[in-house]
Structure formats: C-alpha cells, structure tokens
C-alpha cells in the first residue's frame, strides 16, 4: 500500500479537509451522499493550489528537506535499469553519505555521484543525515578520476545539509577534502552536470558541484549557509530563519535569476515526493538534453567552458 504523504506545517489547511474526506468516506456507505465528498475534494485541490502559489522561501526549505522527498538513490533506480554502485575511498572507509556508481543512459555509461540522506532514523544514522566526511569526498574524487580515465560523463545529485562538522572530520582534514574536489573537478575533461535535488548545503554541496551545467529541481535550495545558521549569526536568533531565507536568495528561481543556475527542472505539483516517477522523468530529460549539448565539445573545450563559467561568477564594481 502506498505510504501516506506527510504534510508540512504550512500545508495544515489541507490536513483538516483530508480528515473530513476520510470521515465522510466512512459514512458514505451508510447514507450515500457522494456530493459532499466531491465538493470537499475540489476544495482540497483549490486550497492546495492557493498554498503552492504563495510559497515563501522558508516553505521551500521545508519542502527541500521533506523526509519523503526522493533521494539520489531513488532517482538513480528510476532513471536506469543498469546500476553498479562502487564503494570506498580505498584507504579505510566507505562513507555512506556519498553514493556513487555507474548507470547507463541511452547506451552511454555515466558516472553518477550523489549525497544521500536516509528516509528513516535507522538509515539516517547509517548515512549520517547526508553529511559527508572527508573520506566521502575522497571516494567522490576517486570516482571522478575513474570517470575521466574511461571518458564517462559525470552527473552529481546534490542533497545535503553540508559537510559533516565533527571532531573526526576535522582531524581528517575536511577542508582539504573539499578544496581538492573543487580544484580537481575544475580541471576534468569530461562533461559534469550537477543537479541540486533537495538541499544544497554550502561547501559540502559545492564539493561535488563544480560542473559545466548546474540544474536545480523546482523546490530545491542552494545556499552558502543554512537559513537557521545565518539567522543565528547575523540576527542572533534562530527565529529569524524566515528573514534569512528570503535575504540569502536560495530558491531555484532566485538562483536562476542570479545567473548561477542553468535551468530549473519542474517538479510534480506539491513537490517531488507526491510523484517521484514524474520527477525522475523530468530530471532524466534535462540530463539527456545537456549531455547531448556537452558531447559536441572537445575535451579541452569542456574544461574551458567549466572554468570560464565559474570565472564569471561574482558581482563587484570596477571603479
């Protein structure tokens, strides 16, 4: 049986209506009044429409973190029948917060790497809530090199609160692990396409995000710091997370307008978790489109295009 979708706090009006519908559906066997249910269902859709027309940036943050939102492994399985996961950094650890392996898209072998959150507590413990350790980034780097060696395009799926801020992560040099990925990704001669599918958390996300094309799912976010973290530092209270979320410009639409993101991929109504199949279909179509475009370039051109893209980023005044 299909699991019921968990509603977020701003979707509360929907909860009341759906509860009434359920109650009436139970009663309907007795008095046969179907009209009320139909009306309510219409009302449900129109209220939902209204809610989703007026989403605030903080609402989007909540959608991007929705526990039932599809994660990279879900998309991978929906996009391709061939999937060989590759494990480990080759020097002591397999960080489960980063998953990577080879899939097949239209007859081409593609390296796909993502940050993976869990759907329940047990899986989240295993995946460290999608927060990679230095070993995870080293595993990603190993797979980047592998892809380059065998001329495979690289796709990265980003869904992480950020790199793990822990004692062991620091003593194993989290900073260098991220910095190395930034530098080495910049120099690769195979196409790299990054898609933010959920939460794009700062340096931890960028470490697999230096790409020729940066795409975002409609309800995903990408930010230099979490709105809560920003509010705690600048406003000195976490309650101002909503203000911080608006100020930071973190939604897919904002980032598209800023020229950072190449395309915003539409999601099914209400978010990818309402219809993962449709979301993955849209994702796959966008990936195919950009793969086709990038494959026209020579290896040198691919590297140049990527470096040029990041060279242009930044806004300043030249007096």
């Amino acid at each position, binding site marked *: 049986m299909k699991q019921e979708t968990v509603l977020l706090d701003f979707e509360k009006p929907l909860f009341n209506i759906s509860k009434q519908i359920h109650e009436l559906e139970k009663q309907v066997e007795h008095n046969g009044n179907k009209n009320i249910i139909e009306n309510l269902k219409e009302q449900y859709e129109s209220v939902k429409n209204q809610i989703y027309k007026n989403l605030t940036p903080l609402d989007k943050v909540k959608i991007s973190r929705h526990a039932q939102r599809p994660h990279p492994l879900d998309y991978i399985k929906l996009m391709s029948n061939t999937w060989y996961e590759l494990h480990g950094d080759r020097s002591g650890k397999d960080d489960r917060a980063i998953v990577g392996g080879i899939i097949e898209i239209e007859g081409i072998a593609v390296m796909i790497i993502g940050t993976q959150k869990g759907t329940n507590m047990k899986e989240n413990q295993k995946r460290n809530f999608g927060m990679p350790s230095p070993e995870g980034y080293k595993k990603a780097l190993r797979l980047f090199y592998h892809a380059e060696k065998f001329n495979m395009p690289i796709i990265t799926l980003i869904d992480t609160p950020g*790199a*793990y*801020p*822990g*004692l062991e*992560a*620091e*003593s*194993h*040099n*989290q*900073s*260098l692990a*991220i*910095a*190395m990925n*930034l*530098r*080495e990704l*910049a*120099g690769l001669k195979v196409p790299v396409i990054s898609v933010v599918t959920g939460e794009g958390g*700062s*340096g931890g996300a*960028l*470490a697999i*995000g*230096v790409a020729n094309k940066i795409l975002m799912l409609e309800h995903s976010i*990408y*930010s*230099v*710091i979490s709105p809560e*973290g*920003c509010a705690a*530092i*600048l*406003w*000195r209270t976490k309650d101002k997370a909503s*203000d*911080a979320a608006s*100020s*930071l*410009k*973190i939604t897919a639409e904002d*980032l598209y307008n*800023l020229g*950072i993101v190449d395309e915003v991929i539409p999601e099914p109504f209400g978010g990818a978790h309402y219809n993962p199949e449709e979301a993955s279909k849209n994702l796959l179509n966008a990936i195919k489109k950009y793969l086709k475009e990038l494959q026209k370039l020579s290896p040198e051109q691919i590297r140049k295009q*990527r*470096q040029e893209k*990041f*060279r242009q*980023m*930044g*806004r*300043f*005044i*030249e*007096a």
Partner: protein
Amino acid sequence: MGLKDFFKNRRLKKVKLKKPPISYNGQGHDLKQAPKISDDELCALWVKCQGCNELLYLSTLKKNNSICKHCDFHHRLSAEERIELITDYGTFLSINDNIIPDDPLKFTDVKPYKKRLEDAQKTTKTKEAIVTGIGNINGYIAGVASMEFQFIGGSMGSVVGEKLTRLVEVAIKKRLPLIIVSSSGGARMHEGILSLMQMAKTSSALKDFHEANLLYISILTEPTFGGVTASFAMLGDIIIAEPRARIGFAGRRVIEETIRQKLPKEFQTAEYLLENGQIDMIVHRNGLKNTLSDLLRLHLTNHNNATSKDVFKQISKEHLLIKI
C-alpha cells in the same frame, strides 16, 4: 578605578595608534598622509595581551611584530602590517585596488550590508578584506596576498574571490611564485551563493597555477575557517601556520553542538593541525620572512625550467615598472 581598569576602558574604545604607512601605492588606499594622532589615541598606549593578560606598551608590541614578549602570543596583524612584515621595504606594488564591493542581493539583516561595508571601510581604511600585489621577499619576487580580518571577519565575497583569482592569473602569466596569507571566518553570507562560488573560482584558478608547476605557499594565521580553509588556503604546495593560530572548517561551537561534547582545548590550533598531518610547519612570526625567502630560493635553484629562471631575474630587475 584601578590602573588596569583605566587601561581596559581605554582599550575598549578601540582606538589604535597608526604606524605611518611606508609601502603602499595602490589607488584604493589613502595612506600617503601620516595620520594625525588625537588625544584619545595618545592615551591608548597600553593593551592587554590576549595570551597572558599582561599589560603591554603598544608601541613596543608593534615594534615586536605584535608578539607578546612575555608569552610569545602572536596578536593579529592587519593586512598592511603583514605586507610590511614579509616584503622588502618599498617594493610592494598593490594591484586591483579599483575592485570594490557591490550589494548584489540588497541584503539586510539588523543592518544593511551597504552600511556594514561603509563601516568596515572606515575602520580598516581598506576597500575590502584582502590586499593583493607583487613584492620582493629578501630580493625574491612573488605574488603576495594578505587578508584583513577586521573587514567583516575577513570574509570572502565576490571582491576577495576576484582579486585573488586575478593575482593567480598574473602569477601564471609572469611565472611568479604565490604567497597567500589567510585570516578569515569563511564565505561572506551577505553575498549569498555568489560568495560560495568564489571557493570554486579561486580553486579553479589554482588548478591552472598547479599545472604550471609554480610554487604556492599558503600561510594560515589566526583565525582561518570555513570556505577559505576549504578552498585556496588548504591548496598550498607548502602550508605554514603561525603558532597557536586557530584553523579549521567548522567553528568550534557548531561542532560542540553537533557531537554534544566539549572539545579539547588544543583542538583546531596550528599545533593540533601539525600533529594531524595537515600543515607542513609552524613558523614564528619573527622568522617568517627568512623562511619564505629560503623556500623561494630552494624551489628556484632546482627548477628545471631554465627560461622561467630568466623571466624571474628579468622581472626582479624591472619589477617596480611592471604595468598590470
């Protein structure tokens, strides 16, 4: 009020004696004029050491490169003081000072970003959190960058990223070694994603620099954190830290909140990083310049590329005349 309190009050007013500038000629710095010293500043002659709480006579402290004579604590240097420390007198040529910050997101927290920038420019007398240029270190020419922590926590926004990237590009073109002194809290939140992308931009430039077989010495000073550590600061061929400097990715408080336990005192200090194999050496500030010039010399003598040696000599001679 005791004598200690009296000086503490003075210090809290945050007035500092300014040393007359000696080596800048960039357009962005109005440092040609010797500053006038007010009565307030004249009284602020004493500071308390952050390491041992001893009272220190400010001008003696400054003469000793801001190192406490009692406990050897290295106090923070401004970008300008740092440049004076490591480059030869009068040889530093500051470049790209005409790049100044914008407010792309129209960011406002409790204070508008524009206002923050203006305040920072006023207190630090610099346009941004970094000074870049070319200078001689005991006669060896190098591209030099120095970060200004007093400028919004030395945070990296678009300007810091751009100035650094341009310096790296100049260094590649002129085949110069590169020395970057970091002191930063990380990426600048007020420029949002654009700040984050500076991590990728600077690292991408360093990829080209790395492939050009040129030497990059990264110097980490108190404090170096976040997006700066996780990009250019950790990518040095040789990484030097100052004694007791705090260096890391995530802040101490964030880690303590995450793992829910107290961290050891020495965690994230230069000594801790050396112990954990993350940096090459800790160098006392008084020996920094000689260490740098020695390293530059050692990497120059064994350089296989003969032409690069010639370029080096040639640029060394005419270097103050370079137009960039």
